[in-house]
């Protein structure tokens, strides 16, 4: 039941919010709801939770099944930690019709939680789409200048991808022995090797667009830039994880042979994507775009590590799913605080943040270190494991991907230099009063960065069962 309640808390709050007109009140309700969800997710992560199972569509034999294993738990934690963080950090931002904005945010959270918990393929698809619809409206209504066109591109891209997945689901469903969408039945489906390749391709298209893998990434930088920052945070901290989650949950266990047969190809694409995104990030002057491209590079590394199909690589990804979310969230919040107070995102116009607001300066440096995966930060643990896996798979690939570490240092430190150091620029001078809620969130997140960086054992324990499932010798 606790799994059902974690889904229903944001859902019910979202409906209530539609009728709350006062901004202040709406804020409190939204933060309270996401806080309750966080508490529930901690409970689930550390105490475990029983599966929830009920018949949904009897004629299709589709069930409403919610399960939580290590993989689900770590993404549950990430989602439930991100949403209150985002809502608190952006609580001071001026937004028109704030109650509707918050309501859609919580609908998006419901969809995301559903994706990570669904134990039934049709239900998974259902939530997969549901997470997309609120984001479409959030970006199109509250986004930047070119929002409508950009969001539409994003929507069509991902919608088409998920339709491919739907065909994949139907395809596997018709080959299950008991005509069921249950995860176990899908695993036991009787597909020939050729059919598995087809199904693999159908599923992979959806996940590749969502992650995104080069050359299907073109929707992403524009969407990140044009979305309101709170939504960008959701997109890059949590939503891209849907693609990686899909690979670990569905692709690897369902079609292991097709998976390893295509690993070279996908890894090549991923590494091209990593280098491509890194090079572009170096040339960016817009802070939001820089973080967007850096995020693409990191996700590319994760997908490469996944397709190395080694235990150590998947372990690294499982840790990094969480760590990357926290790090990129931190960077976005800092970028948002600066943009809200100065009105610019251009790195040229910045400078002297460390003098003007030392706390924010220190946090920027801290999250930047995490972004380039320095030891003692959380990202180091995951990236170390992932590079290890790449090296085991193919040293040349590892070397090519390794260049991205250097590139990451270049663009990230460049950003820090331009933003935090030097004389206090005109626009940075406008930052007179610190944004306390945002700084509070940043400090909490940075503590998470440090703690999981120094002592990652709880994360390993949490995900142990998923690894065991995937790599039973």
């Amino acid at each position, binding site marked *: 039941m606790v799994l059902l309640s974690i889904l229903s808390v944001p859902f019910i709050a979202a409906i209530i919010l539609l009728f709350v007109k006062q901004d202040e009140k709406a804020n409190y309700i939204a933060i309270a709801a996401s806080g309750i969800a966080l508490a529930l997710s901690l409970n689930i992560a550390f105490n475990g939770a029983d599966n929830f199972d009920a018949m949904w569509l009897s*004629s299709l034999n589709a069930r409403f099944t919610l399960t939580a294993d290590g993989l689900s738990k770590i993404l549950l934690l990430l989602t439930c930690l991100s949403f209150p963080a985002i809502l608190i950090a952006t609580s001071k931002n001026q937004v028109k019709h704030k109650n509707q904005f918050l309501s859609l945010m919580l609908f998006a959270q419901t969809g995301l939680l559903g994706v990570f918990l669904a134990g039934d393929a049709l239900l998974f698809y*259902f939530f997969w789409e549901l997470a997309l619809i609120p984001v479409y409206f959030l970006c199109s209504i509250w986004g930047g200048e070119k*929002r409508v066109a950009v969001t539409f591109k994003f929507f069509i891209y991902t919608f088409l991808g998920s339709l491919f997945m739907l065909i994949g689901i139907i395809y596997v469903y018709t080959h299950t022995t008991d005509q069921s969408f249950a995860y176990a039945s899908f695993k036991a489906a009787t597909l020939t090797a050729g059919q598995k390749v087809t199904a693999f391709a159908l599923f992979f298209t959806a996940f590749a667009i969502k992650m995104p893998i080069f050359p299907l990434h073109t929707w992403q930088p524009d969407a990140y830039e044009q979305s309101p920052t709170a939504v960008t945070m959701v997109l890059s901290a949590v939503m891209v994880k849907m693609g990686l989650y899909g690979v670990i949950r569905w692709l690897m266990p369902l079609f292991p042979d097709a998976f390893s047969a295509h690993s070279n190809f996908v890894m090549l694409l991923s590494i091209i994507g990593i280098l491509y995104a890194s090079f572009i990030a170096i040339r960016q002057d817009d802070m939001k775009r820089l973080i967007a491209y850096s995020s693409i590079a990191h996700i590319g590394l994760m997908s490469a590590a996944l397709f190395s199909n080694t235990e150590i690589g998947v372990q690294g990804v499982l840790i990094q799913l969480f760590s990357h979310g926290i790090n990129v969230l931190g960077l976005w919040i800092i970028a948002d605080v600066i943009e809200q107070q100065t009105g610019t995102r251009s790195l040229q116009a910045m400078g002297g943040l460390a003098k003007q607001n030392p706390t924010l300066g220190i946090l920027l440096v801290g999250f930047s270190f995490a972004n380039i995966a320095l030891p003692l930060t959380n990202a180091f643990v995951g990236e170390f494991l992932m590079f290890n896996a790449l090296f085991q798979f193919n040293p040349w690939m590892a070397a090519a991907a390794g260049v991205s570490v250097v590139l990451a240092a270049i663009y990230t430190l460049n950003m820090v230099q331009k933003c935090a150091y030097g004389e206090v620029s005109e626009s940075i001078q406008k930052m007179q009063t610190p944004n306390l809620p945002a700084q509070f969130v940043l400090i909490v997140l940075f503590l998470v960065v440090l703690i999981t960086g120094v002592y990652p054992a709880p994360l390993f324990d949490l995900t142990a069962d998923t690894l065991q499932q995937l790599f039973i010798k």
Partner: protein
Amino acid sequence: MNAIIASALLGVLMMFSSWITDNEKTHTRIALVGLLTLIVVNCLQLNGLYTIPLDTKGMLSFTQFGLFVNTILFILTFLYVWLNGAEIAKIGNHAADFYALFFFILCGASILTSFNNLLMLFIGIEILSIPLYILTGADKKNLNSNEAALKYFLMGSFSTGIFLLGIAFMYGATGTFQITTPVVHPTTGMIREQLMLSAGLILIFASFNFKVSAAPFHFWTPDVYDGAPTVFTSFMATIVKATAMIAFVVLFHSQFKALGYAWNILLTFVLLATLFVGNITAVFQRSVKRMLAYSSIAQVGFMLFALYGATSFATEGILLYIMAYSVASIGLFGVLIKMKEYSFEAFNGLAKKEPMVAAITTIFLLSLAGIPLTGGFFAKYYMLNAAVQSGLGLWLVLVAILFAAVSVYYYFKLIQAMYFAEGDPAIEPLDKGYQYKLLVFAVLILALGILPNVFLSYLYF
């Protein structure tokens, strides 16, 4: 049987009700009561409580499926009249005449859901079609309406001729008008008079394509839908089309084996052409009404998937499809009627002026596009599942979903106009009552999208 007799009687009653009173509101009420009676009478037979005893010599057979379809059609008509009563009254002199025509159409529909004989099928189709020609031309002073009616009538008569020729061939091949499963010779595996039977079936197939407006027999659709008064377009594009589709599916589920491999090729060609024409042309429309006309062609493309094989997915799916499609379209046309002009720009800024109507319209559009949580999703899901299950090449399904993605483009264009464009929407003031009626449609769509089972369970009583 109950429904056929009751609807014919009610039609006559409706015709004379304008002698009793001139009050149009009363006519609408009589029609609503009549429709309720029809639903009740039909349910009596559906639940096996009472059936008017009448020997049809096996020309009609009343199946659970057919009677259930009747119920759906009657309920849809009820909802349609309930929503549009005031608009119907605005057209022509006597609303009662139109209601009478509706009842005759429903009489034709009840025959089409229970035919077991080609002649009955023919009569059903004619009873269904002829009132439509009148409805199309109902706006007598409007030249477009007249043109549309004439066009529809001429082309419709021609397709009727083709239909009759098809029946003649089938009679020649089998020696009976009864619907029989094709007889396969025990040793040679041949079907008797295969050639003549196939020729007849192909002619009937073409004629049915005309009725449901599948390409390449769709040319009348945009002009007729555009020219006819919008209320009646709403009726034609939903309830009538749904009926024709059901008859189409029922007939060919029992006959398609006679065509062998040719059937798959034929159907695939029509299906792809329909999806292509409907979706691609809809993208370029500037008028929402014409866009909906083309989108209704595109939707037929998806419904045709039900024809590939007589699986439970196909029959359940087509039911779900007509429910989801009709409810969403009636609702959408209900919004469209209230617009002063039909261009996309007319919807600009609707979300600010009428937030509730905009939200409801969005639900309709999402359903037509087939997004989860709406009825349209499961409708499309069942169709795709039926296609995959019947062992077709996966490529056809993939092409279909590419077109589904195209359809998102033009449906979302309307959402974008309502929500993200600034402007003053050209909409007539809407009273609360009308908005709540629309809300009922939206709730139905959501109910179909979350628990389609509830609506289908009646099939298995």
